[in-house]
């Protein structure tokens, strides 16, 4: 039993998915999230157990819609998808094959599926044409903070002339060739995770990772209809950011080393108090953005509020306050009741000035 298993307790570990990895990469300084994710702990359940259930969820209508759109695109051996690849993106695909790797002969064991994914993709990469075009639900692995995790396979890998593309199906609409910028950005970040994982797989098989294209095929409903359309999305920027952030992620071992021996976040055998204390021993870096992406966000926000941290005002406000960590300190520097440390002299002077003209203007 590893230390991560001890942390998790008897519960089965959760899979990573592109959304969790992308969220982790958005806040690379958060040890708490990194550790909970690495241990495969169910953050949703943990947060609920601690009395801070996640502030978000997915509507059953949205889930139904996403599923039906996904099914529509993949119906009849991905007929819609092939049409889009041929006509919208102008690719000359003569013959197409489709293999689904969501289970291997009825076995949905991760290791088996991953091995199968590797084998199929390797054969397609070495044999070229004729060795497969579309691979649905490829199970990929990714090194996160020094640990290998499986990625929930929500994509299709597509091969043309020896080059591989990630195909992501999303159910948000593209209206008059424009889609919601926030949703496109999120899709790009998630696709980048798959491109990254696919490249890692290629590299470990001795293949050229650049055969995995940074152009991702994004399939979305067009206008107000249910009819799919496809666009190429260049995720180079997201890839670079992801690479950098994954490499910056604190090594889990370092975090583990700082933890008290025998500590566990197990929520099944402990009273709510104990996991709460245990979770608090790991540092979090709360930002309001967590509220839309991390299940633990409300717990961390309460913690930030209790300690008067400037984090709860948002990153911009925190930066504007010169990175001063606590609100009482910032206000103390402003009214002169607190003396500034050498590195605070500049911001202290500014805050005193701000206080003077703010008070003057409000009066």
């Amino acid at each position, binding site marked *: 039993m590893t230390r991560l298993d001890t942390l998790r307790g008897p519960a089965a570990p959760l899979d990573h998915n592109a959304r969790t990895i992308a969220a982790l990469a958005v806040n690379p300084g958060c040890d708490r999230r990194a550790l909970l994710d690495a241990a495969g702990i169910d953050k949703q359940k943990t947060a609920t157990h601690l009395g801070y259930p996640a502030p978000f969820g997915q509507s059953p209508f949205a889930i139904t819609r996403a599923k039906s759109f996904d099914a529509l695109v993949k119906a009849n051996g991905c007929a819609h998808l092939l049409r889009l690849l041929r006509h919208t993106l102008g690719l000359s695909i003569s013959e197409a094959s489709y293999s689904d790797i969501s289970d291997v002969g009825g076995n949905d064991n991760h290791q088996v599926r991953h091995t199968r994914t590797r084998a199929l993709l390797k054969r397609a990469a070495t044999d070229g044409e004729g060795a497969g075009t579309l691979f649905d639900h490829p199970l990929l692995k990714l090194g996160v903070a020094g640990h290998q995790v499986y990625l929930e396979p929500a994509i299709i890998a597509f091969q043309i002339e020896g080059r591989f593309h990630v195909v992501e199906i999303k159910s948000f609409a593209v*209206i008059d060739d424009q889609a919601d910028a926030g949703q496109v950005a999120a899709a790009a970040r998630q696709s980048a995770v798959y491109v990254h994982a696919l490249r890692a797989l290629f590299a470990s098989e001795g293949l050229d990772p650049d055969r995995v294209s940074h152009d991702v095929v994004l399939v979305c409903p067009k206008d107000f209809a249910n009819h799919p359309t496809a666009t190429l999305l260049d995720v180079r920027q997201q890839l670079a950011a992801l690479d950098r952030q994954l490499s910056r992620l604190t090594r889990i071992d370092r975090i583990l080393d700082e933890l008290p021996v025998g500590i566990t976040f197990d929520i099944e055998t402990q009273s709510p108090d104990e996991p709460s204390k245990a979770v608090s021993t790991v540092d979090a870096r709360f930002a309001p953005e967590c509220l839309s992406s991390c299940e633990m966000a409300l717990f961390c926000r309460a913690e930030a509020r209790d300690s008067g941290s400037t984090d709860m*005002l948002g990153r911009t406000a925190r930066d504007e306050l010169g990175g001063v960590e606590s609100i009482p300190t*910032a206000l103390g520097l402003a009214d002169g009741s607190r003396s500034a440390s050498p590195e605070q002299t500049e911001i202290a002077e500014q805050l005193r000035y701000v206080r003077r003209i703010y008070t003057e203007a409000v009066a």
Partner: protein
Amino acid sequence: MSVISAYARALAVQTGRAQPVATVRHVHLSATPMVFIPLKLAGEAAAPLAALVGTDPANPRLLVVPQPRNRDLRFAFMAELADVMLPYVESFAGVTETVEAKTPYERSSDAPQLLVPNRGGIAFTKLLGRSTRFRRADGPYPVHPSVPVLGQWLTFLAERAEYAGSSALVAMTEALALHWATGQSPMEDANLATQLAWIAPPAGQNGPEAALAAEDPLTSPPAGPETHPDFDGQVLDHAIRAYETSSSPAQVREALRTQLEPTWTLMWQAVRLLRELPEAATVDARWAKDRDQFTRETARLADGGFPRGRIDGAVSAAIRLADLESALQTYEAQRAFDDPLVMAEHRVAGKAFSGEVVAVDATRRIVPPGKTRAAPRPLVTIRTSDPVRLSPGKRLSSSRNRKQKTEIVSIAGDLVVIQINDQMGRGSTPAPGSVPEVGEIVCYAELDPSGGQRPRLPSGEDTPWTHGGPPTPYVPTDEDAQEAWS
């Protein structure tokens, strides 16, 4: 965000109550605004689910789509919405005033104002406009004749909302954020309930307590357009099924009423809070622009104007962009000159300074560059304790006379010397009062209320080939009118 608002947020945390970031109201508030709270079905691009709409706080009108996936029911909803909105919008078209200008013209004395809870409300209004403005009352999929007209008005209002300083379609959370800094993050301020909890907590509670309570989706359901996922799964789904078996929308109506009514109350509470603030000096001038545009749109529609195409031509897009920039520039300058608290942000940033006039050389005359005769160019020396980050040559404006052009001559220590370039009368010496006097407290800023000049652009027919050549003007097509809405 500026350091001023970050400081105000910190103060809000300390005092447990939102703090002002404006001393006057910068948005226009109509005597009879129409509050519009639309809801959409989760997962769909633009499937209306319900709306609470009206001009009377005591008498909202609830509209619902009992089965949001049914196209006919959606159009019935839009026709009902048109029934509420169009009489309101059109009631402003009749009464006009004559504007004294080089060529006098008629302008509506007032215009419609739509208030939605948040930015999402504006985006959804735009989508509703987009999905209905091309429809037709004849042909294969006829809709009620009022539907495309409503689509055109919603499109117009959503487009006005892109212009800084326009009050035709206002997102309430943004209007409030313009005037108060809460002790939460800007992201959380997009929640009307928690934002208002910080600004005006109920008796016996402080801001953070009230905001925490207002996060409970049972007492403060989301202000839309998205509904709460739990509500969708636990209530709405059953209600829609009940409608399908019984054909009675009663259950759906009741369910959606519970989701909308709390926001309705909050919207009018916000209106009251904003009304308490005195109106800023230039609000009227900006509202006149909204009225101008409303008058033009009324005339255009009366002439049978086509709905706006899906995509702008190159020239009209460039003009729009320039106008958006100019509106923003004007708005920022006007807001700062109207409000010392907003000006404080520019002072902290070093783009403005305030101080006492310590010396004036009113009789100074020089030959300005490019001219042949000497003209008055007085120098004014101001002592300021602000951290000025401006360089000589920068053009400044002042609230003393917003039209007067001045520029920085030199900055030495806490002394700034500026030169006044115009607005001094025709005489050989400056007209009395046109130049600040010793002892006066003045404030100068690198802000231009004129909004700059729109670059010269070719007419649509002369669009160069680099930009696709002259665009074919948009003519409504049958496909557009019959576009699927599933």
